[in-house]
């Protein structure tokens, strides 16, 4: 939350202070910074409802940079609001195992969430599924390909989604990017929205610097 300021305390760092903030910096595009945009009529609430119908077990499928982790971040508060006790894990690059899960801590109200599920070894996958099954806990995972759980949602980026994301990021900006800039960079990134945003970082920087120089 932001309170009022005594002058001069700009909320967004301005050029006159010698700094500027690129709307495509990682702090603004990381999962959780932006809500997941449903352009297909679906919603996070409906998704949670589907998960509940599937005994809180499911998978979110999608390619690199398609928004799986962002969707997960959008779902977290809704899962907690639905009375789930969320136990979240993020499987980093090269990691094959999860940290030890305290079995007595699991219950039917527990929701195990694993981001990057397919990176785990088959043994870790088998272990966590067995743990969840025995405790009656829910299991929600993200994966690039089918992980053997019911699919709750499949993220499919499109140029329309890419434009909507950029629109959200640049809502308060005076420098605007043309639809052509977005389209060209979306196609250059082969549909990877995250990679497109990194490319637009440079485009914005270039345009912003040119305008300042003028």
């Amino acid at each position, binding site marked *: *939350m932001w*309170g*009022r*300021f005594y002058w*001069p305390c700009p909320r967004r760092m301005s050029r006159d*202070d010698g*700094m500027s903030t690129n709307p495509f910096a*990682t*702090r603004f595009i990381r999962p959780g910074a932006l809500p997941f945009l449903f352009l297909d009529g679906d919603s996070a609430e409906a998704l949670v409802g589907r998960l509940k119908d599937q005994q809180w077990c499911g998978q979110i499928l999608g390619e690199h940079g398609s928004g799986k982790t962002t969707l997960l971040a959008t779902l977290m508060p809704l899962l907690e609001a639905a009375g789930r006790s969320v136990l979240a894990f993020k499987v980093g690059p090269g990691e094959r195992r999860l940290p030890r899960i305290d079995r007595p801590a699991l219950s039917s109200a527990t929701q195990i969430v694993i981001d990057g599920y397919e990176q785990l070894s088959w043994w870790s996958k088998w272990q966590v599924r067995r743990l969840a099954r025995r405790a009656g806990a829910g299991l929600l995972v993200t994966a690039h390909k089918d992980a053997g759980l019911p699919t709750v949602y499949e993220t499919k980026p499109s140029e329309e989604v890419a434009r909507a994301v950029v629109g959200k990021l640049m809502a308060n900006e005076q420098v605007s990017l043309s639809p052509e800039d977005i389209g060209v960079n979306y196609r250059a990134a082969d549909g990877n929205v995250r990679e497109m945003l990194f*490319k637009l970082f440079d485009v914005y920087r270039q345009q912003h610097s040119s305008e300042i120089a003028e």
Partner: protein
Amino acid sequence: MIEPLLSLCIVGPKRQFAAGDELVCEYQIDAVDPADIQAVEASVLWHTEGKGEEDLGVHFFERRLPADAENGDLRPMRRLRTRLPNSPLSYHGAILSIQWCVRLRLFLRRGREYVIEHPFGLGSVPDVGPVLLAVPAADEP
């Protein structure tokens, strides 16, 4: 519910500082019951921004509890002083920036938290010019 009013400013006209300069800040909290305040943290820090993960370094940090304040009231104006270091200098590069700011964080009961920041510059490293930001054409690798 009325939101608390946080006021933070840098004393003096300068917003750009040299290494070794003294930075003086003042902050004040209003529109909140003093009994509701659990703690106030004030810090002078740098953080990166750009295409990488955000890194952060704290140069000055002060945490005050009601017991540290006169009459247990953390709201009255407080002044901070610190001498700024030699590095890292403020920087606006091609894919990363280094930014300095004063940050005030207010902790209230029931887990509520409020943050405000006031940026400033350290040093005078020029920005990376537009000639170096030649973005490769979309069809280039």
